[in-house]
């Protein structure tokens, strides 16, 4: 349990820094809210058309592919740090993991979801 004290203190500093800086900004800044100020900004003109529009599915697919490879990055960083202790077994399992994600990439490439027609 001893090792976790430094983590808790570090966590406290992070939260304190966030709260203090935002709090100071909120307390010290003059506030003058009125309708035209809180209106959405659309290059200075009156906003036209609603934003709740049925978007094409292409955007959603790109987001999916991003999440897949983002999760991959989350695993890679700690893996690299402890690679020496894991030895060859760790190496092989990670490459197996990479192969599975590679399959996902090949599928996305074959479906041509990243090319915008």
């Amino acid at each position, binding site marked *: 349990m001893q090792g976790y004290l430094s983590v808790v203190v570090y966590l406290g500093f992070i939260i304190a820094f966030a709260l203090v800086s935002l709090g100071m900004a909120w307390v010290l800044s003059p506030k003058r809210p009125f309708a035209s100020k809180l209106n959405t900004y*659309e*290059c*200075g*003109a009156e*906003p*036209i*058309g609603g*934003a709740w*529009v*049925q*978007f*094409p*599915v*292409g*955007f959603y697919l790109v987001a999916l592919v991003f999440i897949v490879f983002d999760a991959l990055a989350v695993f890679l960083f700690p893996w690299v740090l402890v690679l020496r202790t894991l030895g060859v077994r760790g190496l092989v399992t990670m490459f197996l993991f990479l192969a599975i994600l590679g399959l996902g990439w090949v599928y996305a490439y074959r479906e041509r979801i990243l090319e*915008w027609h």
Partner: protein
Amino acid sequence: MLDQNTTTRVEMDWSGPERLQMNMGPQHPSAHGVFRAIVTLEGETVVAVDAVIGYLHRCHEKLSETLTYAQYPSIASKTDYVAAMTSEFAYVMAAEEIGKFEVPKRAQYLRVIVAELQRIASHLLWLGTWCMDMGGALGGGATIFLYCIRERELILDLFEALVGARLLYGFFQVGGTRYDIPDGWAQKCRETIAVIESRVDEYEQMLEDNAFFLARARGVGVVSRELAQDVGIAGPLLRGSGIDYDLRRNAPYSSYQDFDFTVPTEKDGDCYARYKVRMQEFRQAVAIIRQALDKLPAGPISSRPALKSVAQIRIPKGEAYARVEGPRGEVGSYIISDGSAKPYRMKWRGASFSNLAILPHIIPGHKVADVVAIMGSVDPVFGEVDR
């Protein structure tokens, strides 16, 4: 792909994903001034563009009916404020054409030198803002912008030494020019254009093998020959679409026939072609300035006495349309005079007004990011569009 020349207000009913209507409004980093395009989007593809202009309509044509021939040239430079010299050039030439004033040879040469310097300065600003539009202020685009503005400062120093003003000059006057070049200016001008010429090679080498630039510029915003003439676009846009037409050679004015220069044209009419034409025009302008400086004759700079009073210049009744090859195309001034000291009617043919009219014809079908690239390659200046 969508049919290229849909009219501006196409309202196709579309069972696909809904349309998003959006303002690329007056205050937009790549709006090149105050231009508002109401863009109807389908995902990333633009379906229709409705251009709203007039945010910089400063009543030039109405004001020109209340200002005399001596007062208006310095206001005329505010129409195309990036190439102020060529705007005054057109107005003054129209007035001279009606009054049949003879312009001395030295003044004609000075006008050519100054107009070509202005073309280089205007193309530098075009290259800078276009690359910034495509690369983004914090992305890679700002490098070219900073380089181009640095070169443009060299030319503005020349103008400041000649006229005293950096951007808007009162250099032209009916009958000639108001200032003569100070001594040492010619030598300084030669050094500046030598620097400019080496820098243009540097820009080309920087841009031509940049894969992003080629992907963004090639095949984007294609203007066919027929559509180009039909809408009346001019200058680098026309020559980019393969039409070999340049006022300085086809209808030479102010002794342009004394210089030999080639008119660069490209065939495929897309943003890359227009870019190539303008880069060639840098070099042609440098060549013209060198020849003009070498053959600069001595003599008076104006055939009329110096300006003492505002209403001194009286033009007989008549009308004339004078045209000048500005950096953006044909800038023309159509004056109808009624014999008094003020024109009866003055119509300003702004090159950017017709160039901008091509946008609703070529933008539908492109992505939103390409709209910015096409706008930059058309290079509109809104003092000239809204007049």
